[in-house]
């Protein structure tokens, strides 16, 4: 069967809405779309190392059931036949949820999918596999000593970014049009930036985390990656809604955004984040922010208060809550961790409790101050990463004559934002040869505004997910 209804002449996936329309109107079967995704994975995953599990049998069965429903005249969802994959910290029935670790492989196989997997499939999407990630999500590189590193589709000698590295590689390399990941301190926005794709970290509490493996309860978010803003919106809408099985999931009603993304942005007040966010940037990151602010006509900077302290507080809370989560495993199986992750977690177990409490109190203060700013602006523009994707294994980079550790500095611009759960769309600026992302930040629960701005930038050609050569 011809793949024209779902693949462009350039070899990229068409928008999810077009794939779903083609499947629903029988221009192509869901099974054929699934086979196309499986063929891409088989061809390119040996290089990209994005997938740790390919759920081919399940995907074919799901697709056949969808085709049978269409043949019987039943209505199907807005993502009918659209292939997607999930970071391997999402529960997938039949797989142990490894969360990038060696230890979790000994867990029993999951008996039920994560809530977000269920919701994507309820909308017609077809799960094709689980994706590589940094161990226990305590990572910004996408490297993994147990499974090998995820590789960047735009230069396979470079990092994907992490910890959702396989999610970045799979969508960046067009193996699948949509993937899901998690973001605690930047783990959706960093791979989006390095792999040149769109990523949405929604408001904290917006999307259910039920049946996903946690890292830092205070900051853990789940969200989608895609090659267009509309695909982000479609998948986000499919996954919204309360879930009593995640204690932090909001009881807010679903607020669909897909129909809103094309609204004019002329009335929005947009500022660039100044001060801290103008520092520690390589020229590519400066160029990316400049292109986005120019396209949006931004003429002013806005200062977030005490940003460096916010980043420090996020760091402290992350290491302590991570240590608490893994305390028993640190006692019983310390040699089965990546030593670098283990040693960070052991240190986290030793932080005196009052310092953690103060960090959580500071978080309350910082949140109030930043929310005040949203009385004056609707959108804040900030860099997503200080640099393009570093080389795999690269330990340091030199910025303004100072040698800095790569791992500790990749997330300096994302951590102060997820710290208070603001919604962010990471948009890719297609610089050559390596893309780099910019954060479009909105007030809590205003994903619609961030997506509208991202969509306007996409239509203007300022941001786009570039095709990775050879994939």
């Amino acid at each position, binding site marked *: 069967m011809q793949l024209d209804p779902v693949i462009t002449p350039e070899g990229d996936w068409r928008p999810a809405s077009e794939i779903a329309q083609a499947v629903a109107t029988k221009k192509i079967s869901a099974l054929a779309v699934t086979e196309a995704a499986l063929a891409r994975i088989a061809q390119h995953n040996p290089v990209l190392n994005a997938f740790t599990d390919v759920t081919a049998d399940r995907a074919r069965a799901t697709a056949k059931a969808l085709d049978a429903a269409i043949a019987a005249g039943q209505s199907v969802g807005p993502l009918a036949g659209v292939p997607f994959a999930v970071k391997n910290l999402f529960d997938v029935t039949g797989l142990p949820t490894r969360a990038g670790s060696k230890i979790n492989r000994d867990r029993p196989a999951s008996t039920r999918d994560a809530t977000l997997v269920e919701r994507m499939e309820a909308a017609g999407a077809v799960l094709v596999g689980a994706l590589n990630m940094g161990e226990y999500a305590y990572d910004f590189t996408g490297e993994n000593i147990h499974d090998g590193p995820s590789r960047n589709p735009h230069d396979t000698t470079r990092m994907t970014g992490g910890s959702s590295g396989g999610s970045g590689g799979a969508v960046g390399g067009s193996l699948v049009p949509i993937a899901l990941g998690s973001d605690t301190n930047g783990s959706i926005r960093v791979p989006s930036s390095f792999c040149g794709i769109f990523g949405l970290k929604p408001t904290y509490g917006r999307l259910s985390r039920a049946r996903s493996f946690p890292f830092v309860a*205070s900051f853990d978010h789940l969200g989608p990656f895609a090659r267009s803003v509309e695909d982000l919106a479609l998948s986000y809408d499919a996954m919204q809604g309360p879930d009593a099985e995640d204690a*932090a999931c909001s009881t807010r009603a679903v607020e669909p955004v897909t129909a809103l993304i094309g609204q004019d942005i002329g009335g929005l007040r947009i500022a660039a984040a100044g001060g801290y966010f103008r520092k520690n940037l390589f020229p590519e990151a400066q160029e990316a922010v400049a292109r986005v602010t120019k396209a949006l006509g931004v003429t002013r900077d806005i200062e977030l208060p005490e940003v460096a302290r916010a980043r420090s507080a996020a760091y402290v809370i992350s290491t302590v809550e991570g240590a608490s989560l893994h305390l028993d495993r640190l006692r019983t199986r310390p040699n089965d961790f990546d030593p670098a992750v283990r*040693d960070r977690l*052991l240190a986290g*177990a*030793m*932080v005196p409790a009052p310092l953690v409490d103060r*960090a959580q109190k500071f978080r309350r203060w910082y949140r109030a101050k930043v929310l005040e700013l949203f009385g004056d602006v609707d959108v804040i523009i900030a860099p997503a990463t200080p640099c393009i994707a570093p080389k795999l294994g690269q330990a340091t980079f030199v910025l303004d004559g100072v040698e800095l550790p790569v791992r500790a500095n990749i997330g300096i611009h994302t951590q102060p934002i997820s710290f208070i759960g603001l919604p962010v769309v990471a948009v890719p600026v297609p610089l050559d040869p390596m893309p780099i992302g910019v954060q479009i930040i909105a007030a809590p629960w205003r994903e619609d505004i961030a997506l509208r701005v991202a969509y306007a930038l996409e239509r203007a050609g300022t941001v786009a997910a570039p095709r990775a050569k050879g994939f």
Partner: protein
Amino acid sequence: MAEPLDDYIDAVAGALGLPIEDAWKPSVRANLAVTLKMAKMVDEFSLPDEIEPASIYAA
């Protein structure tokens, strides 16, 4: 020569039942030093007595 944090690391590891091999100690110490530096930066910021921690729980 004993490092300043080593006694503290040994004491907490003992209290929590965490096995820390000698070979891991330099890395644990380095991570802890960075974390305490970060925590000090937060600690130095004056907050009102009445401020609530940003907890998740709601009854």
